[in-house]
């Protein structure tokens, strides 16, 4: 046991030591960079538009480590392998990831950015539906940043100023429980067959859920519709409802497992992920990308313009668009945006690529106006067609 005076002496010594270390830490980068944050040429991390502004990836990592934390929002661990991605990032850079409200929607993300302006717990990075990425950029909420792999991302998949960049996506697919359904439907036309009465579900309400919206869009393409004309898709689901095939239950892993939604139209990466999840649970989940209605959609990454951890946010993006990050998405059956290039230069995880549902051709994307028009039509006509 130490006497009280000895303890006091030790405390004084200790605090002196801490103070010296602290000032030393604070002073060192000052001399090198002229800023307290490790950025080169006096550029603040919040203003950096590429890794060059930091000098190197190592400098960026050092600046991010000094912040020590990263606030993410709306990243469900069982969605596109985000659980593993977060763990890998934490382990690699020793940065704590605060994952808030994993099941939030894109609208919630934008609301969080707006309502927590200037707060320490505002989200640093966002994973948004494309419409929200565009509207958020128009509202000037995002910081422009071009990742190292910027040039390899196709022009249609990124904002010219780098305010948002597509990250991963997938195709509308039909999941089907082969243990309950003798012949699984392969196309949208198949879904109308009387044998599927009371069996076909969407992942939610298309005026709210992005994947359900994709389902209606794909059904439209399958029925002589176009990106500008979603009406045939709405009519198709109206027809499904009339024949009794469509059930309005929002399909989730729980409803699938119980057999409530034995056929579910959803993103192929979610359906393919369910197949793994259900192995050994009496569910034989098969995934088909319908050949008559091929529709792909990508989500987008964006950095909060007023991110409380600006360097960590930029490091997160560099990680996601590295071969490591892209392969982790791939492992979750999502198709990362750099996949075509990675397949060519051999950095793609071949085993994971082989497990993806087969699709012919390359995806096409609706223009901004076409998307807006389709949404307006859907919001106006969906209720009437389904009730």
């Amino acid at each position, binding site marked *: 046991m130490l006497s009280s005076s000895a303890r006091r002496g030790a405390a004084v010594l200790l605090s002196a030591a801490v103070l010296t270390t602290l000032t030393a830490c604070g002073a060192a980068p000052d001399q090198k960079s002229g800023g307290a944050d490790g950025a080169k040429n006096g550029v603040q991390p919040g203003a950096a538009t590429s890794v060059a502004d930091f000098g190197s990836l190592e400098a960026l990592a050092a600046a991010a480590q000094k912040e020590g934390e990263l606030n993410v929002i709306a990243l469900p661990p069982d969605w596109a392998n985000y659980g593993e991605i977060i763990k890998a990032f934490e382990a690699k850079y020793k940065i704590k990831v605060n994952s808030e409200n994993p099941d939030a929607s894109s609208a919630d993300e934008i609301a969080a950015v707006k309502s927590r302006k200037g707060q320490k717990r505002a989200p640093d990075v966002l994973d948004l*539906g494309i419409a929200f990425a565009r509207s958020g950029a128009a509202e000037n909420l995002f910081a422009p940043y071009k990742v190292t792999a910027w040039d390899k991302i196709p022009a249609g998949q990124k904002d010219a100023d780098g305010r948002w960049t597509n990250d991963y996506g997938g195709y509308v697919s039909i999941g089907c429980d082969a243990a309950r359904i003798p012949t699984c439907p392969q196309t949208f036309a198949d879904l109308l067959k009387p044998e599927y009465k009371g069996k076909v579900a*969407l992942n939610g309400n*298309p005026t709210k859920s992005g994947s359900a919206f994709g389902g209606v869009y794909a059904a439209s393409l399958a029925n002589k519709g176009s990106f500008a004309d979603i009406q045939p898709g709405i009519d198709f689901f109206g027809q499904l409802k009339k024949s009794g095939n469509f059930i*309005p239950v929002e399909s989730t892993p729980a*409803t699938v497992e*119980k057999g409530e939604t034995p056929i579910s139209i959803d993103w192929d990466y979610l359906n393919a992920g369910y197949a793994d999840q259900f192995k050994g649970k009496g569910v034989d989940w098969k995934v088909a990308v319908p050949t008559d209605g091929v529709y792909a959609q990508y989500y987008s990454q964006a950095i909060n313009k007023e991110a409380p951890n600006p360097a960590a946010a930029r490091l997160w993006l560099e990680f996601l668009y590295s071969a490591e990050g892209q392969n982790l998405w791939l492992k979750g059956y999502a198709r990362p945006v750099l996949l075509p290039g990675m397949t060519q230069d051999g950095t793609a995880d071949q085993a994971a690529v082989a497990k993806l549902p087969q699709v012919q051709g390359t995806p096409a994307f609706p223009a901004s106006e076409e998307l807006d028009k389709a949404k307006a039509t859907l919001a106006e006509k969906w209720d009437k067609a389904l009730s």
Partner: protein
Amino acid sequence: MSSTTDSRAADGTRRRRRGPRTWLATLPLLAFTGLCFGIPLGAMAYGAVTRTDPASGATQVTGEHLARSLQGPYLGSLIGSVQLSALTALVGGVLGVVIAQAVVTSRSAGLRSAALTASGVLANFGGVPLAFAFIATVGISGVVTRLADLTSLGWNLYSFTGLTVVYLYFLIPLMVLVIAPALDGLRPQWREAAQSSGATGRQFWRHVGLPVLAPSLLGGFVLLFGTAFAAHATAAALVGGSVPLVTLKIADALSGNVLTGQENVALALGLDMILIAGLVMAIYLPLQRRSARWLR
């Protein structure tokens, strides 16, 4: 009951009640109510009638959102919600009264406490768990559906009728809870007096029972209507978009992945909901005051 004795005892001093000291005592309550209801209401009303331009940040007053909330699918959802709430409140109210009367008049204390406890639990059993309980029992592949082959009888849980049945599951117990004390207040002596004066059971209810109960019945109906009108999670889990309901529309517009820039319409819909609730109260309050005369 206690309020009637109070007012009789305080007859001579009624004027003093409005004195400044009693007002002072209610100040904390008024301040609390003003803060907790006033601020959200103000924010909602402000958002419903203004529009902020995303590029310039300029805000201007507009009636556009309110107009849109009263058109097309939004109007449809308001009508759908009112229809569903009125129907479920009516059916739930009638069944609740019948059950409560049976429980109150039965002489079994065990049945009484069991029924009231169960009602207390069930009235608060809502949301997603309730929806899943129904899906598992009478959904498309539910246990009961398959055993009794309900589908061939035309049963469909994911419809207006299905939703009505699910809502009744928590509305009937709520009505039992609300109305049981009022039924207790119907003194057996009144019925005996009516009987000894030669009144039939029907006449007793027509001239004594119902008039005395009317305020409580109306109150129960309004409460049930409000509960059904504001319910969201159960309906969201069960029917998604196929039964148009205003709470679901607000959720779509406010926190979806598809529609952008609809927040103000959602606020306008919220304002519409408050107006409808206010309207129901405006009908209820004068009626209640009129029937309350019977209690004097």
